[in-house]
């Protein structure tokens, strides 16, 4: 199966080389850096090291970056797309586990989760995670422990949905939507490290806004989307 790693990067000049090195030493899969109009020299670093990259002329956010990656994967006929953060938080050695899960046809979307076998620590940061988890349980009946994990693998059905539906974002509400469309979601235990350089996009207010948006979206908007009974895979 053809696998593509999408690495969305916004101002990740300090982390991107290390991330790519991690990927190339631990896997043989194709990867693609998506430079979302970084203000630093992320683009020049990609150019210098000859990383395959796409560079957006206007900064448009994470969702747009992932959608672009999906478009590229769809055009080049990739079977699996893995979303992989460029900030060094994700570890490439766990990619194989995600790919295996999809190749074995266990699921359409594999989420790299921190809390499958390990217990979720109790902190304010995890409260939002738990809240979203609760909302997903309520609307779909499926337990997803690490909802905000940014390390996910999507199969061809999900890629196609991403390309065709511009409301698809790499966020938990889209996962709920995909589940209602009949896709199977599985969690795979991974470990994540703290980011070394650069600043996270999320501060306290952004996080609260994010939580509110997600919960609202999951509870009120996704409920109105029609549930598809049959699983596409069985056809």
């Amino acid at each position, binding site marked *: 199966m053809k696998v593509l790693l999408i690495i969305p990067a916004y101002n990740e000049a300090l982390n991107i080389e290390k991330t790519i090195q991690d990927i190339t030493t631990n896997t043989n899969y194709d990867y693609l850096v998506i430079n979302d109009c970084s203000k630093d020299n992320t683009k020049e670093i990609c150019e210098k090291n000859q990383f395959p990259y796409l560079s957006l*002329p206007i900064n448009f956010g994470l969702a747009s970056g992932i959608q672009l990656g999906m478009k590229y994967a769809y055009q080049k006929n990739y079977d699996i797309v893995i979303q992989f953060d460029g900030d060094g938080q994700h570890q490439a050695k766990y990619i194989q586990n995600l790919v295996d899960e999809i190749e074995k046809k266990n699921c359409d979307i594999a989420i790299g989760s921190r809390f499958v076998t390990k217990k979720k620590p109790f902190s304010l940061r995890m409260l939002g995670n738990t809240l979203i988890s609760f909302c997903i349980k309520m609307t779909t009946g499926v337990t997803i422990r690490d909802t905000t994990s940014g390390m996910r693998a999507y199969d061809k059905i999900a890629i196609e949905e991403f390309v065709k539906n*511009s409301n698809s974002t790499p966020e938990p509400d889209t996962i709920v939507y995909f589940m209602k469309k009949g896709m199977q979601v599985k969690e795979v235990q991974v470990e994540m490290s703290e980011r070394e350089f650069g600043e996270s996009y999320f501060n306290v207010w952004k996080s609260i806004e994010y939580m509110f948006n997600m919960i609202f979206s999951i509870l009120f908007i996704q409920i109105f989307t029609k549930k598809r009974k049959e699983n596409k895979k069985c056809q």
Partner: protein
Amino acid sequence: MSVTLRIILIVCSLISFILVVRKIKQTKLKVTDCIIWILGSILLIFMSIFSNVVVWISEKLGFAAPVNFVFFMMIVFLLVEAFHHNMKISLLNEKIKNLNHYIALKEKEEKK
């Protein structure tokens, strides 16, 4: 309706009318996008000239005072406009995003 309110309404609608026409002349507004404002200001003038019609309608609909009906109409008009703009912004956003993607993909193609 009091005379003062009628004068205020007429002045407001005249100002908005002149503003819209001026902006069209300066080509800062497209004619098709601002017809709604011209219609709105014409409606305001009508409401202030034929105020007995407004009084009659507001009484029939059970408004406490005709002025409430005038404000109600304005709020409805503004809400519809706001929603319309919201829709337009979403659409434009989508178009820019697709253009953005297209440029990025094209750039990669050409580099090969």
